[in-house]
């Protein structure tokens, strides 16, 4: 649950986005710029968080009182080496923030911190990750919370989709690419698993609202409506003209679902509305048409 330091929203004077070159960081920077909020976009080109002296380099880019959004991660985290590197990156961030105190920090985590069977997931669900990716985010959350004296908001998004997604993970983005190319979409089993798919611009808007309210605490980023992968595939096919085929495969693993109780988001931001999956996919199709 988030608590707002600013009951009425107020734009931060300047926001530094660490990891602005990625899918989420890029969307956040765009959203803040749209509200004329000064944004410093840091990518690996400006600061390599694993390089020697990176904390000093990062500190030089910061001003006291900045709001800082921490997105940068080596994701997905699948090996022990990647886990260690991700934790080292947050060590660098914490060291820099100890040198130059910010006014507010927003950490973009993941719903992978929750146990697989926590349904419906809410912010009070125990964090009990079953994956290295979840363990990595949880370790970074705890490390940041332990080192910061200023308000920290931890946002835990569910699965994300949107035009700029660089990953080709199982879900709407891959389905759209396949459907647009007229290729068959192959599902695990019959695609029965239900997941909560979030449109990237909703993440950016929630980060913007969290910054404006200078919120502290934990908030999940999830729509509250879970779709089966088959439904998501059918929406993608329909959005691209309806020509592509969807094909099931013999099931290898048990069916698992994930649902969210989004009451905390409704209370934190009563006027915010999530983009329905159909609308988000349609926007991605439109934006890709614009690119091509």
């Amino acid at each position, binding site marked *: 649950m988030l608590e707002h330091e600013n009951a009425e929203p107020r734009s931060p004077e300047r926001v530094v986005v660490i990891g602005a070159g990625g899918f989420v960081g890029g969307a956040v920077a765009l959203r803040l710029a749209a509200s004329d909020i000064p944004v410093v976009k840091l990518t690996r080109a400006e600061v390599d968080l694993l390089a020697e002296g990176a904390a000093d380099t990062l500190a030089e880019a910061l001003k006291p009182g900045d709001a800082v959004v921490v997105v940068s991660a080596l994701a997905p985290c699948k090996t022990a080496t990647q886990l260690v590197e991700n934790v080292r990156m947050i060590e660098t961030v914490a060291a820099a923030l100890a040198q130059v105190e910010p006014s507010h920090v927003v950490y973009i985590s993941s719903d992978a911190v929750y146990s697989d069977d926590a349904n419906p997931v809410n912010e*009070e669900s125990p964090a009990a990750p079953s994956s290295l990716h979840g363990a990595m985010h949880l370790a970074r959350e705890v490390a940041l919370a332990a080192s910061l004296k200023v308000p920290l908001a931890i946002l835990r998004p569910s699965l994300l989709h949107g035009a700029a997604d660089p990953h080709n993970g199982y879900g709407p983005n891959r389905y759209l690419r396949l459907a647009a190319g007229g290729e068959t979409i192959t599902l695990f089993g019959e695609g029965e698993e239900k997941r909560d798919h979030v449109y990237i611009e909703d993440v950016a808007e929630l980060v913007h609202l969290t910054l404006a309210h200078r919120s502290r605490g934990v908030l999940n980023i999830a729509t509250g409506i879970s779709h089966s992968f088959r439904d998501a595939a059918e929406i993608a096919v329909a959005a691209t003209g309806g020509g592509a085929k969807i094909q099931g495969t013999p099931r290898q693993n048990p069916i698992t679902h994930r649902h969210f*109780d*989004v*009451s905390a988001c*409704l*209370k934190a931001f*009563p*006027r915010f*509305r999530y983009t329905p999956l159909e609308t988000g996919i349609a926007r991605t199709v439109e934006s890709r048409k614009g690119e091509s």
Partner: protein
Amino acid sequence: MSQPVIGYAGMTHLGLCSAIAAAAKGFDVECFDADGERVGAIAAGRYPVVEPDLAELAAQHRDKLHFTAKPGDLARCDVVYVAPDVPTDDCGGSDLSGLEALFDTVSGHMSPDAVLVILSQVPPGFTRPRVRPDRMLYYQVETLIFGRGMERALEPERFIIGCADPASALPDAYATFLARFGCPVLPMRFESAELAKISINLCLVGSISVANTLAEICEGVGADWSEIVPALRLDRRIGEYAYLSPGLGIAGGNLERDLATIVRFGEELGADAGVVSAQLRNSRYRRDWVLRTLASEVFAQRPDAVLGILGLAYKQDTASVKNSPSLALVAALGPRELHAYDPAVPADSVSGVVPAKTPLDACRGADAVCIMTPWREFAELDPKALARAMAGRVLIDPYGVLDPAACAAAELEHFRLGAPTTAALAATRREDAGT
């Protein structure tokens, strides 16, 4: 023995209902509260609580009720109950300081031959350390239900009496008083009696949690919980009076206090109280049912929707708003136009709402109406008149106060706890069409 005089210390909900019931049973009753203003108001017939029949019974037996702010007046009593309401915090913790102070006051002024009875709910282990060789001390389980306070005080199902030694007979004055109610008297160890009250409440919470869990499943699979409940009530192991109505979590504070107490004891003793933690979690989750329904059925289309709120009290027939789902909803909705009405809670005492004079006034021009307390007055509303007054068509009626068929005839979209959602109904219709 001659007819004993009974004293009650603490003229809040529990003490007042109990004192009036004692007078109604024919006993002279000394009613003490240190708050002189409160005592004056009650003596003048202005009662701090809303309970059916309370004012009438108090008037009828006025000659047997003596209200006082002087603790010395308790000296003429043969049995003195210490009965203040025990406040609870947001986490279900009890603040026992008021009870402890009143206990000391009463102890200092009552006759040494009188029986001292703690009636307020206390956690296991509270009473025994207060036993003194020169004091006859008992703990009696209260089973007050808000909205049925007088009925419960006049016709208890049984008396559960905590004793230092349950093998010893109860003092004559106390036994004479209890016998007048004509119900079983169950003496037991202090600790057993203290835990018996919690045990009763946990059984109720168990039923409520089952009802709430299954109501949600009903909503998703196209079943209707109201059709299932009569079948459960005919099962002897469940019973006619089982708590099977789904609700917006566990409101009121007292049940939550008992859950929190057991979780705390579980932690201290190393016992597995995980099932109780799950019930607390489910309660908090179900409390937001209306908010989630509004988000998906109203705000998704109209973010600035105007709402009518019918009911502010935590349940019908009471003015108590402790842990009220209605107030929690109002707080969660943020700044927006809300019109509210409650028969007992003045709407102008709730910030963020526009008070309405009648239920229909609260609904006029509303995009959606939420019936948050199942007052009988709301059941008498004509769905067609409601639909005419509203601008929108969404009626969120968690307790099913209004008849679903009449609401459908009035073209209202009627959302009830445990009733199939529109999507679930559509799915069953598709299956009907396919067969």
